[in-house]
């Protein structure tokens, strides 16, 4: 594992005349934090942008531990393909309740800034978008749930209000409100289209309908309890979230897990990648009314879920990862069974792939629909398959190369056109690559313990991790408080960023192609509405 890489960023900042202060102690062990002055906040983001770093996340937390001053800190994190992650923070102090927006440089920051604004009551100045985001209009204006002073059991009266969607004052334009309740069994979220006939002029999302208060709810839990909650941030990437949480805890507590543990985690994560990609490919085909593929994919997905239930005790592989280890182990026989299963699965998917690729009617639908250009993808910082399809290839498995990926050769499929077809293609590629890696991991499964003794770090210690889950990079930052309980937990699901990609992708497509595009991104509502 490489360490202390963000000296590079610190140097770059100093070169641009910004004063930086290293905070090695009590900060993410593998990634010490840079503290900068409040006035340099926006400039630092601008510099990062100029250095072609991508934004990972922006979040806030109340201080008051150890060396920290009382008052609110705002963090941001960037990543660079070679120079990896950098963590930057600034102190707002007790009285200052505002922070300049960095959305000008990173549009993806806008929603996260609005999240800070909604949850902490910190005004983001000079922001392109002042509307509320995660806190819906029926919450009273004065309620700031993530403040320490806000009791988690507070009951509030219902406020009235309406979200100010972008409007059109032209006569021929109409609005389509789709959602929050959808006809299918999908999560709630509203899409508001401005359209003329079949031509979409603009599409806006309104999310937050499944806001579960996980960040608040995490406060006061131990790591062992917390990982169970983290695993439920988004059900379809439970392994990814649990791993990100566990790894952040481990970094904070400076615990190294055994090689066997990391291999098993890798297997779980890649199986999760496969199962979701298979399901999504089927669903994409179903949205184009090609139900043959849908049913075959459903079948494969169900087979996988049953296999998981048998081997890992849960169809979705929930609660298989704990801080310091995993809860499941594979015997020699189980391991070879899983190898066979994966091999067979990969072969079946390959077979389906030829059917898919050689069926002109489905190809006509997916090719050229909902393209996102590489420059737009970079602007947004699209993650996972959405980024890879457009020609931007961020992958934590290569950039961070956390175990077990330091032992593996990850092939990143390199798309270019950024349309639905390419997103599907990337998924097919990833399925076969995951299968290859699972087999490699299982064949070389080292002996060892699957659980390292967990001990909570002292109060004020924080950890940061980035895990390449199936949807893309999950970033997780947490800080421990007194008695080994978690004091602040922040998680950024890749959906938070990729949702913007969908808004962009559908601006050029006719209305009935929206579901196809939506499914090809398949962002998580729950992961966004933490």
């Amino acid at each position: 594992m490489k360490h202390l890489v963000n000296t590079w960023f610190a140097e770059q900042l100093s070169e641009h005349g910004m004063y930086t202060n290293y905070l090695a102690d009590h900060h993410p062990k593998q990634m010490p934090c840079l503290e900068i002055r409040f006035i340099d906040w926006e400039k630092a983001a601008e510099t990062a942008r100029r250095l072609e770093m991508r934004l990972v996340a922006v979040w806030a937390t109340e201080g008051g531990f150890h060396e920290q001053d009382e008052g609110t800190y705002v963090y941001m994190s960037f990543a660079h393909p070679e120079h990896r992650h950098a963590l930057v923070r600034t102190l707002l102090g007790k009285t200052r309740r505002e922070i300049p927006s960095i959305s000008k440089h990173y549009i993806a920051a806008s929603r996260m800034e609005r999240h800070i604004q909604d949850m902490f009551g910190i005004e983001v100045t000079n922001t392109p978008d002042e509307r509320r985001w995660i806190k819906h209009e029926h919450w009273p204006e004065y309620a700031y749930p993530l403040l320490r002073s806000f009791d988690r059991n507070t009951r509030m009266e219902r406020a009235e209000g309406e979200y100010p969607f972008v409007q059109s004052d032209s006569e021929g334009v109409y609005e389509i409100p789709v959602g929050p309740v959808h006809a299918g069994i999908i999560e709630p979220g509203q899409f508001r289209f401005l359209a003329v006939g079949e031509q979409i002029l603009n599409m806006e999302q309104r999310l937050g309908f499944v806001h579960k208060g996980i960040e608040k709810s995490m406060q006061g839990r131990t790591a062992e309890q917390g990982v169970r909650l983290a695993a439920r941030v988004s059900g379809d990437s439970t392994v990814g979230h649990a791993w990100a949480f566990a790894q952040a805890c481990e970094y904070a507590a400076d615990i190294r897990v055994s090689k066997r543990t990391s291999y098993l985690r890798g297997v779980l994560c890649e199986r999760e990648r496969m199962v979701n990609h298979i399901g999504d490919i089927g669903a994409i085909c179903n949205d184009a009314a090609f139900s043959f593929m849908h049913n075959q994919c459903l079948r494969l997905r169900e087979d996988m879920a049953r296999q998981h239930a048998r081997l890992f005790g849960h169809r979705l592989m929930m609660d298989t990862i704990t801080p310091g280890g995993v809860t499941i182990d594979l015997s020699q026989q189980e391991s070879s069974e899983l190898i066979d299963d994966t091999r067979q699965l990969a072969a079946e998917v390959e077979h389906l792939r030829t059917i898919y690729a050689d069926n002109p009617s489905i190809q006509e639908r997916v090719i050229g629909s909902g393209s996102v250009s590489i420059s737009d993808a970079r602007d947004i910082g699209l993650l996972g398959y959405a980024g890879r399809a457009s020609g931007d290839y961020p992958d934590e498995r290569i950039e961070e190369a956390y175990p077990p990926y330091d032992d593996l050769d990850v092939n990143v499929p390199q798309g270019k056109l950024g349309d639905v077809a390419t997103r599907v293609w990337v998924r097919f590629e990833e399925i076969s690559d995951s299968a290859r890696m699972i087999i490699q991991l299982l064949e070389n499964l080292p002996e060892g313990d699957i659980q390292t003794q967990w001990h909570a770090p002292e109060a004020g210690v924080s950890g940061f991790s980035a895990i390449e889950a199936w949807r893309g990079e999950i970033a997780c930052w947490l800080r421990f408080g007194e008695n080994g309980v978690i004091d602040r937990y922040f998680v950024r699901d890749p959906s938070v960023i990729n949702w913007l990609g969908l808004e962009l992708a559908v601006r050029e497509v006719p209305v009935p192609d929206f579901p196809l595009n939506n499914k090809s991104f398949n962002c998580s509502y729950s992961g966004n509405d933490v």
Partner: protein
Amino acid sequence: MSAALVQQLVDGFAALMLLTSFALLAQHRMLSVLHWFAGQGLLLAATAAIVAYGTDNEELYISALMALLLKGMLLPWLLRRVIRQLHVHREVEPLMNGSLTMLVALGVTLFSFHIIQPIEKTSLLMTRDSMAIATACVLLGMLMMITRKKAITQVIGFLAVENALFFAAIGATNGMPLVVEIGIAFDVLIAALIFGLFFFQIRTTFDSLEVDTMNAHLIHKDDDE
């Protein structure tokens, strides 16, 4: 098989011939174009065989066999290989206003019907009815060459014209003399091979098979000179 049935079969094949010409014109995808082209070749072979049977012309059986091997199998196979090797087999070629092309194609068909009608009346061959269709198919092949952007589809258009001429030959004279036919067949084969070589050459030079791009390159070159 009665003469009437043979006549009907020939008519039926003529109609299918017309259909394949239209279908070639309407396809978006490289591979679909190729499939229809292969179908047209098989159709030609079948027509030749039927006419051979109907007229007891043994040379025509050889023509039928040649059509089957060359137009129904070899050429499609060659082109398929070219397409696969150039990695364009999943490409979609946008049509220039598909419905308008179709209307023009209908007009062309009507026109050939109109001009062939007087000739047909004088002909007494059993295949006379298909003359108008053969003429239409020739024109449709040309239309395909005009409206297409990609070099490969243009070549298929060219080959479709050749198919139509072959069909016309069967229709008008119950087939050309065998020697001529074999000569033409080889010409076509060699033309196809040369085209195939050209594609690779073009691809390496221009990195595209679109005629527009080539024109642009040529014009650009002219400017440089």
